[in-house]
Each structure stands twice: as structure tokens, then as C-alpha cells.
């Protein structure tokens, strides 16, 4: 015999085939193999041989040879048996399995989503060309007192310096971020995350254009797809202008193709040419100012170490250029692009990059629900330990070792956790299909890691839930158990289970209060009419100065009550001007609105003193002002009454008289502190016509009427109008995030309820005989019911007593971030509390009622 069959197949056969027939099978196959080699050739013979061996493998086949069975933990027969018993137990105790599986699978999706998020952090910026050659220069800043700050950013000038000075640097780019921008198209104003950068940025990083070109000249910019859509809908934005209240006009030269902002650290709404910025905002000591992010693309073959040596030299040169009075030393280091996220240590000025520690703290929060569900599992399994104790006893008598019993219970919990994972994945899919979760990206490149993570994570979950019941149950003494002298196990007896119920309900209640409070506040911000009147206000964007003939015709429409003019709608960040009361003092910044009498009336502002701006149709500005109380306070004009008639200097040039003082109100951000505010009649700045309409059911019809009028007067420009109330509602009502948070609170509640049901059924089952005896002795149904329910009512009361102050505290804490808030809603809280307690009581009542209904003749028959 020259040809050998595949050796590995033979070995497999020897290991895993039925040992009873191994000799003749091996022989037969060998004979067949030589026959096959002769008839069909070696290649096919190998193939046939392998196929036949594989079919003969019986990994779980019983070893029929006569000898004592192996008792290894991992012997195939035992493994098979663990699973068999596990499945049988799942099927036997349907209610408990259902509670465990549903609880875990409801709790899983949010933990899985947190895992997806973690994977996404590891996949930041992996879509750029030759990204392994790109590094960022980070800075260690050493103060004179020896303290070192780690910055993710570096001096603005560093990029060009490095490029000119060193070889092996292919390209550098500088990025300066400013996330607190506001841009306005006149009609729409938006908070904008801006970034200044140069053209190299787009050569280094892969952000392709949809149309137009990249910005090179001063005051030009590209918009992201979403921003362009928000401002201009379907119209072409190229060549249009957006205005910044301080920095002036920026021309749009391009629009980027849509990209997933969640997958990059370069999250911005607009990218502006760096060219103009150098002149506009030049700082004196530029080398000391670490506001830029410098990215370098190294030539192929240049090592990071070599570049780091060059940077060390650069550091010492730059330190000589630094102003010695600043008293700090900089040292630059290269950080490869792939190592930026997640950050090993937190760096200053490193937006959208999470460091590993905070990622895992966040993950911990997401785990809370899961921990509750796992506690349910532990609690229930321990509570039912009586049922299983006989099984443990018999198995031990039959020779089972402790480790085998432990393995049995662990198998059960792991099996349950994987069934739950299946359902959890399905729920995750449902969430993906139906709910948009703003903080999460579903676009993961490495699904294989994710699946591995899910499976591994779930395994840990199964072990974590199963370990304590398995340890308790496996240490039963067979003698005691079989004699019937063992009581149900739990940690610290019944007290543990009770405190578990209390904990679960407290957490559920606090979370529900938290969501309720959030809803309460958001509802307020979305529908607020107390700060200013939003309802039925329609704003039309003017193309030039107010057109009196158009206004007259609009005024004739019966739904239009009043026509006001303003420079900007409330809800946007208005520009600042400087105000002061006397010529010689420095100016205080104040928000400025150009407005007229009717606008202030339309907005329903409350005048504390004086009166509104006078009605005027004139085209010249009037030196008359309405200010808010804060302005009076800041300018130290005395009381609100005394301020009337006093002179104020605007922007060092114009003197104007205060005619009215309005109550402080929130005109844009609810978080923002109250600042001085000035209204002046200044028709040249009017940009919006603000119509107060009667409440109308058919807004579209009114808009159509107005559009027809508009067309008559402005045939070449389309009317741009929007309703203030629906705009504000859209801005403040994060519908989908609320949906997700609401869903999470329901999940926590359901998990708590499931835990309650589990304990309830168990304790009622244990008390069946007691109920029977009580009834036989003449207790009425109500009396027995009262006995049963009182215990649980106590638990729920304790939970409520703990949760209410916590809920109020959470609400107060959240309100402390807001200047204008709606207080803590006791009504909402009371309603939610009643809801939770009501459902819990109904469930307790129902199960107790059913237990009481049992016929004592039957339940006591065995005694």
C-alpha cells in the first residue's frame, strides 16, 4: 500500500467513532480506500474516505464497552445530560422559566446597545485612506509649578512649522473647532458646530463633496448634508450666505456627501476656511495657545519613533520662542489616528473622544436593568430550591460530585441566558427598525467582534446569574435533604428576598420619576407660552425692508390679527450690543432685537413699568428702548419705575431713552442665565414679519392665501414662512429619545413586576396549607386575603417611601441646570406612583385571590 488515507480523518475516527466497532470499521474503510484509489483515483478516494469517516463520528455516542463509567465533569455523556436536564427543567417550571427568560431578554437590549456603542468607539475614523500613516500631534504642557496638563490639541502654527522643517512629512492639516456657533439664513437660525480648517484636511481625511468645491478663500465654507438640508431644504445652497452674529457673512461653496457623524471625531456642521480666521482672531502669543488640532500624514516607511524624535527637537525650539513670562514648557508627541479613540487617558480639548474609563462607567449604568433581572433569577432559583433539593440529594447519593451539581445549575442558567439572548436580539432588531436612538450608530464594520462580544457577554451573564444558586444548592447534605429536614435557601432567609423586592421597586420608581420629570420639563419647553406667546404666530421672512402694501393686504385677511416686525424670532441666539448708562463706563453686553410695537404685543411680554414701544410706520429708527429687568439691574438704574425715561448709550454711539421695562423672560435657551435685553424700533434691521393669527384649524389654507399675496409682490422669490409654536415644539421635543427612555422605564418596571410575581407565587405556594387551615377554621375570604396582602403592601410602601424623596432630589438636581424650569411636578409624580402601585397591587391581589379560592378540602387532603 503506497497511498495513505488522510491521517487526520483516521485519527478522528479512532477518537470519536463507536469504540465497539472501531476495528472492523477501520479495516473496512482501509480496504475500500485502496479499492477507491484503484477505481476513481486518489483525490476522489481521499474525499470519499473523509466523508465516510465524518459520517461515522459519534461524539456523544455511548461508550458500550464494559467498564465503570467515567465521572469526569466534561465527559460527553455528562455534558449531554446536563443539557438534557436543563431543558427539562426549563420546560417543567414554565412560569418561572418564563419570568426568568422574559426578564433577562427585556433587560438585554440596552446592554447590547451599550456594547455596540463600545465597538463603535473602537471604529472611529477607520474610513480614511492610508489612515495608518496619519498621526495627531498632542501636547504636554508643563507649568512653572511642575504640573503637567495633557492636551489633545497643539499650537495653531505647529502644522506648517513641522511641514516646512522636517522631511518625511507628506502633509499636515490644522483644525480649530468652535462648537458654540450660531448661523442664520435670516429665516432660520441654528446652533452650529463649526470647524476651521485648510484644504489639506480634505486630502488627509475622506469627506467627499456632493457638490461645489472645498473652501480655500476667507469666509467660505462647506456644509454637511444635514445642515444644508436644514437650512435650504431642496434648493441649491452653493453661493448662498449664512450670517454669524459676530463674525459676519460666510459664503457656502460646497456641500459634503452624507457621512455618519457617530463614526468620526470630526463632527461638525460646517467646515470653514482657515484662511480668514488668522487675520480675524489672531492671538498675541500664538505658540502658547493650544486651540488647534494638528494632523500629520507621514511618508511611507517613516516610523513613528523617528517622527517623535523630530518632534522632541521641535519642542525645544518652540519653547525658546515662547514668552518666558508665560512660564510653561511644551512637549509634542505623535499619536496615531487609530489610537485616538478610545483614549487611554483623558486628554484636554478632545471633543467626541471618550476615554476608556468613562466608556466603562457608562456601560455600568446600562447594566443596572440587567443586574435587576439577574437578581430576579437568583432570587427565584433560591426560592424554589426546595423543589430541587430532592433531585440534588438523589444525585449525590447516586455518586454525583459537588462540581457536577454546580455544573448542572450553571448549565441551566447559561441555557436560559442564551434563550434570552435570542429574544433580546429580536427585540434589538425591533428597536433598530422602529426607534431612532440619537446616541447610537448601527453601522458597525466588525460585526464578527460584536457577535463574539454578545455571545461572550451573555455567557458571563449566565454564569453570574447561576453561580450563587448553584453553590447553595450543591452544598446540600443528602442525608438531611432526603429526610426532609431542610428549609428553602436564601441569603439571610426571607429578609433578603424582601429587600430585593424593595430595591427593585425603588430603582424602578426612581427611574420612572426621572423619566416623568424629564417629560414634564420637555413638555414645558416644547409648549411653553408663559415666557412669550408662541401660539398661532406665523413668521414670514422678508426679502428687503417691510413692504407696506403687502402688509396692508395681509392685514385684510380675516385670520390675521396683528402684524409685527422683528429682526429675529425668539428661540434663537440674538446678536449682542454694548450698553452703558453713562459715557465713561465700559459697556455691558446685551442681547439686541429690532422690533416694533406689535411684535412685543404679539409676544405677550409683560411690562413691569412704562409702556411698549410707540406704534410707528416710519422708516427711521427711533431712539426709544424697551429693556428687560436684568438690563435695569446691570446698568444700576434704580427700580424699574425709576429707569423709565433714563438715557442709555448703545454701542458707544447712539443715545436712547428707556420707555418700558419688560419682565425677565426666557427668549432663547432654558439653560442660559438671564442677560440684559434691548428692544429698539429699527426698521432697517427688520427681517421677519410676525403675524398673530386667530386659532385656525386649517393652517395650510392660511399659508396658501399668504403665499398667493406674496407672489403678487415678490414674483421671483418664494415665500418662506413658519409657525413659531410648531418650530419650538420640534426643537424641544426629542420624540425618539423620549420614546426610548420611556421604553427603558417600562422595561425596568416590568422586570420589577416579574420579580414580584415570582416571589408572590412562591410564597403563596408555600402558604397553601396555611390558607387551607385558616379557611377550615372559619376565616372569611377577605380576612385571609388581608393577611396575605399586608406583607406585600408593607414592602411596596417602604419602596415608595425611599423612592419619593430620591425622585424629588433627581428632579431638583436636573432643574439646577436650567434657569427656566417648570419645577418638580408633584402631580406627575403622584400619578406615576399611583400607576406603579396600582398595577403592583392589582397583581398581588389577583394572585392572592386565586390562592384563596383554592378548595381547602383539596389542599389539605394529604395531611
Amino acid at each position, binding site marked *: 500500500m503506497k497511498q495513505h488515507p488522510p491521517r487526520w480523518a483516521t485519527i478522528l475516527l479512532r477518537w470519536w467513532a463507536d469504540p465497539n466497532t472501531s476495528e472492523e470499521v477501520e479495516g473496512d474503510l*482501509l480496504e475500500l480506500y485502496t479499492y477507491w484509489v484503484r477505481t476513481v483515483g486518489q483525490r476522489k478516494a481521499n474525499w470519499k474516505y473523509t466523508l465516510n469517516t465524518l459520517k*461515522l463520528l459519534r461524539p456523544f455516542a455511548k461508550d458500550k464497552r464494559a467498564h465503570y463509567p467515567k465521572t469526569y465533569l466534561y465527559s460527553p455523556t455528562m455534558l449531554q445530560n446536563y443539557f438534557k436536564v436543563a431543558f427539562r427543567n426549563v420546560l417543567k417550571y414554565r412560569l418561572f422559566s418564563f419570568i426568568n427568560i422574559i426578564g433577562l431578554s427585556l433587560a438585554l437590549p440596552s446592554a447590547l446597545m451599550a456594547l455596540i456603542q463600545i465597538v463603535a468607539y473602537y471604529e472611529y475614523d477607520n474610513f480614511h485612506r492610508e489612515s495608518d500613516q496619519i498621526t495627531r500631534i498632542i501636547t504636554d504642557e508643563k507649568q512653572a509649578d511642575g504640573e503637567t496638563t495633557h492636551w489633545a490639541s497643539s499650537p495653531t502654527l505647529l502644522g506648517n512649522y513641522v511641514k516646512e522643517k522636517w522631511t518625511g512629512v507628506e502633509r499636515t492639516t490644522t483644525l480649530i473647532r468652535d462648537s458654540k456657533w450660531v448661523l442664520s439664513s435670516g429665516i432660520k437660525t441654528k446652533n452650529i458646530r463649526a470647524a476651521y480648517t485648510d484644504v489639506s484636511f480634505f486630502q488627509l481625511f475622506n469627506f467627499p463633496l456632493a457638490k461645489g468645491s472645498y473652501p480655500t478663500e476667507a469666509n467660505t465654507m462647506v456644509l454637511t448634508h444635514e445642515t444644508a438640508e436644514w437650512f435650504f431644504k431642496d434648493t441649491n445652497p452653493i453661493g448662498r450666505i449664512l450670517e454669524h452674529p459676530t463674525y459676519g457673512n460666510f459664503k457656502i461653496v460646497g456641500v459634503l456627501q452624507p457621512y455618519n457623524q457617530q463614526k468620526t471625531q470630526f463632527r461638525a456642521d460646517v467646515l470653514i476656511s482657515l484662511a480668514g480666521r488668522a487675520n480675524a482672531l489672531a492671538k498675541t502669543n500664538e505658540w502658547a495657545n493650544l486651540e488647534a488640532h494638528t494632523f500629520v500624514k507621514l511618508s511611507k516607511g517613516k516610523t513613528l519613533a523617528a517622527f517623535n524624535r523630530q518632534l522632541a527637537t521641535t519642542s525645544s525650539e518652540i519653547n525658546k520662542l515662547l514668552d518666558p513670562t508665560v512660564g510653561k514648557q511644551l512637549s509634542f508627541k505623535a499619536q496615531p489616528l487609530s489610537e485616538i479613540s478610545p483614549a487611554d487617558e483623558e486628554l484636554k480639548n478632545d471633543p467626541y473622544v471618550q476615554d476608556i474609563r468613562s466608556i466603562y462607567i457608562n456601560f455600568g449604568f446600562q447594566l443596572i436593568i440587567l443586574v435587576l433581572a439577574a437578581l430576579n433569577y437568583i432570587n427565584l432559583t433560591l426560592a424554589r430550591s426546595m423543589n430541587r433539593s430532592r433531585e440534588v440529594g438523589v444525585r449525590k447519593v447516586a455518586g454525583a460530585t459537588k462540581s457536577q451539581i454546580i455544573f448542572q445549575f450553571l448549565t441551566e442558567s447559561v441555557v436560559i441566558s442564551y434563550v434570552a439572548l435570542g429574544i433580546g436580539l429580536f427585540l434589538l432588531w425591533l428597536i433598530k427598525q422602529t426607534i431612532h436612538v440619537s446616541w447610537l450608530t448601527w453601522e458597525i464594520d466588525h460585526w464578527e467582534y460584536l457577535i463574539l462580544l454578545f455571545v461572550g457577554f451573555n455567557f458571563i451573564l449566565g454564569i453570574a446569574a447561576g453561580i450563587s444558586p448553584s453553590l447553595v444548592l450543591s452544598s446540600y447534605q443528602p442525608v438531611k435533604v432526603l429526610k426532609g429536614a431542610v428549609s428553602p435557601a436564601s441569603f439571610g432567609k426571607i429578609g433578603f428576598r424582601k429587600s430585593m423586592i424593595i430595591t427593585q421597586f425603588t430603582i424602578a420608581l426612581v427611574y420612572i420619576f426621572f423619566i416623568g420629570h424629564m417629560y414634564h420639563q420637555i413638555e414645558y419647553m416644547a409648549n411653553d407660552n408663559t415666557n412669550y406667546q408662541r401660539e398661532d404666530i406665523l413668521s414670514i421672512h422678508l426679502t428687503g425692508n417691510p413692504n407696506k402694501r403687502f402688509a396692508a393686504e395681509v392685514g385684510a385677511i380675516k385670520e390675521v390679527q396683528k402684524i409685527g416686525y422683528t429682526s429675529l424670532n425668539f428661540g434663537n441666539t440674538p446678536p449682542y450690543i454694548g450698553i452703558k448708562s453713562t459715557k465713561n463706563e465700559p459697556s455691558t453686553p446685551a442681547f439686541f432685537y429690532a422690533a416694533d410695537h406689535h411684535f412685543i404685543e404679539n409676544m405677550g411680554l409683560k411690562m413691569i413699568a412704562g409702556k411698549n414701544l410707540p406704534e410707528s410706520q416710519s422708516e427711521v429708527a427711533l431712539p426709544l428702548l424697551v429693556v428687560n429687568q436684568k438690563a435695569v439691574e446691570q446698568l444700576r438704574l434704580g427700580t424699574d419705575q425709576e429707569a423709565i425715561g433714563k438715557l442709555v448709550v448703545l454701542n458707544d454711539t447712539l443715545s436712547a431713552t428707556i420707555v418700558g421695562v419688560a419682565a425677565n423672560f426666557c427668549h432663547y435657551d432654558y439653560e442660559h442665565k438671564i442677560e440684559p435685553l434691548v428692544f429698539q424700533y429699527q426698521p432697517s434691521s427688520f427681517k421677519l414679519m410676525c403675524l398673530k393669527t386667530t386659532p385656525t384649524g386649517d393652517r395650510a389654507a392660511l399659508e396658501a392665501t399668504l403665499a398667493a399675496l406674496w407672489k403678487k409682490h415678490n414674483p421671483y422669490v418664494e415665500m418662506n414662512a413658519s409657525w413659531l409654536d410648531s418650530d419650538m415644539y420640534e426643537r424641544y421635543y426629542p420624540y425618539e429619545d423620549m420614546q426610548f427612555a420611556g421604553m427603558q422605564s417600562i422595561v425596568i418596571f416590568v422586570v420589577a413586576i416579574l420579580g414580584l410575581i415570582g416571589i408572590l407565587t412562591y410564597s403563596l405556594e408555600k402558604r397553601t396549607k396555611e390558607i387551607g387551615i385558616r379557611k377550615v377554621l372559619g376565616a372569611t375570604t377577605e380576612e385571609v386575603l388581608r393577611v396575605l396582602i399586608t406583607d406585600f403592601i408593607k414592602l411596596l410602601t417602604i419602596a415608595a417611601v425611599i423612592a419619593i424623596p430620591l425622585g424629588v432630589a433627581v428632579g431638583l438636581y436636573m432643574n439646577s441646570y436650567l434657569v427656566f424650569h417648570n419645577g418638580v411636578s408633584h402631580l406627575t409624580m403622584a400619578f406615576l406612583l399611583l400607576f406603579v402601585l396600582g398595577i403592583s397591587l392589582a397583581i398581588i391581589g389577583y394572585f392572592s385571590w386565586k390562592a384563596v379560592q383554592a378548595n381547602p378540602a383539596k389542599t389539605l387532603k394529604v395531611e
Partner: protein
Amino acid sequence: MKRTFLGEFEEIVLLTVAILGEEAYGVSITQELEQKTGRSVGFSTVHTTLQRLEEKGFLTSQMGGATAERGGRRKRFFTVTATGRKALVEVKQVREELWGALPPQTLQLMGG
């Protein structure tokens, strides 16, 4: 556990064992089957079927003498038991009864 029902493939294997008489072992049965039925039969399938038939009591087996062939491994020879023979006869009878019950014109239509 023991089914006395005889499957189609089991029946063929059992018959082949009977045909081969003293020389019935894994390889010869497989090859005989392939030649007679003209279909490709996997050795593993035959082996499993033989095991099953033995479990059901239709076959007995004994190891043959040691030879120098096939790496010194012995062959397991199968013989049909009395129960096996009875089962075969029963199957044959059932078939014949069924054929007998076939109306003659249908037989003609089938070309028989």
C-alpha cells in the same frame, strides 16, 4: 427502542447479507449493493444500517480470523438470524399480495 419494522434500505441490506452468505462483511456488502442496485451507497450508511439490524435482532455477527491484509484488522461477518429470515419472508409476502391485488389491466398499462 427496538422497532421490528423493516425499512426499504434495511430490507435491501438484509437481502444482500443473505445473498452473500459467508462472505458478508462491510466492504463486500457495500460493493455488492452498488453493483446490484446501481446507486452509489455510502459505506457509513451501510455500516449504520448493519448496526441497527443487529440491534433489532435481524442479524448476528462474529469477528473473522486475523489476516495480514488491511493493517491486520479483522473483519466482522454478518449472518441473517431466524427473525431476520422471517422478516424477509413477511416482506416478500406482503409485496406479493400487493402485486396480486393489482388489476390485470393496470399491470398491462405499466408494461408488466
